[in-house]
């Protein structure tokens, strides 16, 4: 039941997307959800469509649709099968997509897609990043250079998933791309920063997982008392800022973790 997310690492090459006439594809997820697929590769163009449609959908909610889950290439809508049949929701969504495509061509890349830039303080190495030295030796680098590479890059939040508020971040420098652990850990502390394949992410709550842990943030990524209940949203830009253990303790104590 854990670390399914690690299967999903595929090169995030931002190749110019050749327009796939077959997308969006609509298909069922069981008898009470519908998947709308906008592409078949992890890239920024597909992700932009996912975000744009999610925003459009959230501002044009449909009666009977109770939940919306955006991912890398898909938006999944959960509907109330007590009152809606699959053929009905399928026809409705086709219409909504057509009207969105008209809307989208009018409003391409306007303000609503503006994303925030979030800085995440991370204490790298030692007890917070038990795999940092392994990552360094695997990459033939010094541990400090791994930290410099990881904190020097800018990342994009492709999606949230796995556990509440877990960001799947694209943009990891290829020099520090490493395979995940052979045996996943049964419990990883909240705030742990991991890398696997060409992805990096932060575990918002204690959970099992198989990513290589290189540090930990005192920030809370899951904020159940707020709306939205997560620090990050799909489309946000993320930078990691190295901090010392002392700073970590101070930030943790002053309630960075709410």
């Amino acid at each position: 039941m854990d670390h399914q997310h690690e299967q999903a690492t595929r090169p995030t090459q931002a190749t110019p997307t050749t327009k796939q006439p077959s997308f969006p594809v609509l298909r069922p997820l069981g008898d009470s959800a519908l998947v709308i697929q906008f592409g078949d590769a992890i890239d920024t163009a597909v992700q932009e469509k996912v975000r744009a449609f999610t925003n459009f959908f959230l501002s044009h909610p449909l009666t009977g649709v109770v939940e919306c889950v955006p991912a890398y290439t898909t938006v999944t809508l959960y509907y109330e099968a007590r009152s809606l049949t699959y053929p009905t929701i399928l026809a409705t969504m086709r219409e909504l997509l057509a009207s969105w495509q008209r809307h989208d061509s009018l409003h391409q890349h306007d303000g609503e897609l503006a994303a925030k830039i979030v800085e995440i303080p991370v204490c790298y190495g030692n007890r917070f990043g038990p795999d940092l030295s392994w990552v360094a030796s695997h990459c033939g680098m010094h541990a400090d250079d791994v930290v410099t590479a990881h904190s020097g890059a800018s990342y994009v939040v492709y999606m949230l998933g796995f556990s509440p508020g877990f960001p799947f971040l694209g943009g990891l420098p290829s020099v520090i791309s490493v395979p995940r652990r052979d045996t996943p850990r049964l419990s990883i502390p909240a705030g742990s920063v991991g890398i696997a394949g060409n992805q990096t992410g932060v575990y918002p709550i204690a959970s099992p997982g198989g990513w290589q842990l290189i540090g930990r943030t005192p920030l809370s990524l899951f904020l159940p008392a707020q709306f939205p209940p997560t620090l990050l949203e799909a489309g946000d830009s993320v930078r990691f800022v190295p901090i010392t253990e002392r700073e970590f303790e101070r930030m943790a104590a002053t309630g960075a973790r709410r």
Partner: protein
Amino acid sequence: MDEMALRLANRLVGNAETAAGLEVTLQGPILRFRDATFIALTGGQFEVRANGIRVPYLRPVYIPPETTVEFRSLDWGARAYIAIRGGIAVEEVLGSRSTYVGAQIGGMDGRPLQRGDLLPVPSTDPMEHHHELSRVTRVTWVTEGSWMREQNGLSYPRWFSPDLFLYGGKKGRQVEGLRVLPGSEWDRFGAPEQAAFLETKFRVTPAADRMGARLQGERIRPTAGDPLISEAVTHGTVQLPPDGNPIVLGADRQTTGGDPKIAQGIRADWSKLAQLRPGDEIRFTLVTMAEAQESYRGVWRHFELIKRSLVWKGVVQR
């Protein structure tokens, strides 16, 4: 997990169907009631005792003040539901009173109940419910004898609610058919794997909780292909991780997953899924979308009939 069972339990004590209740898994608690109230039990069948008598299921049961209600052995199923008149007034988190242990939110500090916890139950007048029941029942139903059976201070109507009929066949540890639709990656599996998936009796392993249940039987692996891109999964999704042992996801599943989804348990069978316990054997049966959706509407039609019969019996939603 077993949403319909909780809805029914709430109905039986006159609560809103979505009021918070208790879910009891495999092993039950001992509950001490300080004040008089009504409770109702549904779902998996435990032997539940109070004041020396067995507390019946599928009925509102009057619990006198200072009563201890004790859960003993589990006869069938895995999860029982207890509704208490007035509901349980824990804080709402993200619009819900549910406990999600994974993220430590909801319920009592986001954790399972512990010895000594005091549940916040809004005080209601149990006699008011008693009167509702007795007034209507006397007039419409009872022609002979007492309408309530009273034993050792507990009392409950002679009638009981029709069952939900969601659990299939005989209630026991036999092979159960869990109806599924083909999953998004059904076609990634070869014909022999698809056949094995539908013919194998899978056993529920001890790794079964609200997040999901790991099964064991034939190992089933997809034909090699492009790696999957993570996308939404849901309650009832049957995933196949690399080891080839299926996992059926439950109410507390993750939002997204990257393992191939061979099948999707239909919503009408989520209650059946909730009642699986380690050691049980299940088999998957393919149905069509139309059959799945019609079955689910059937669940609700049946539930509406139960609700109507309860109104006749004097159980009125508050």
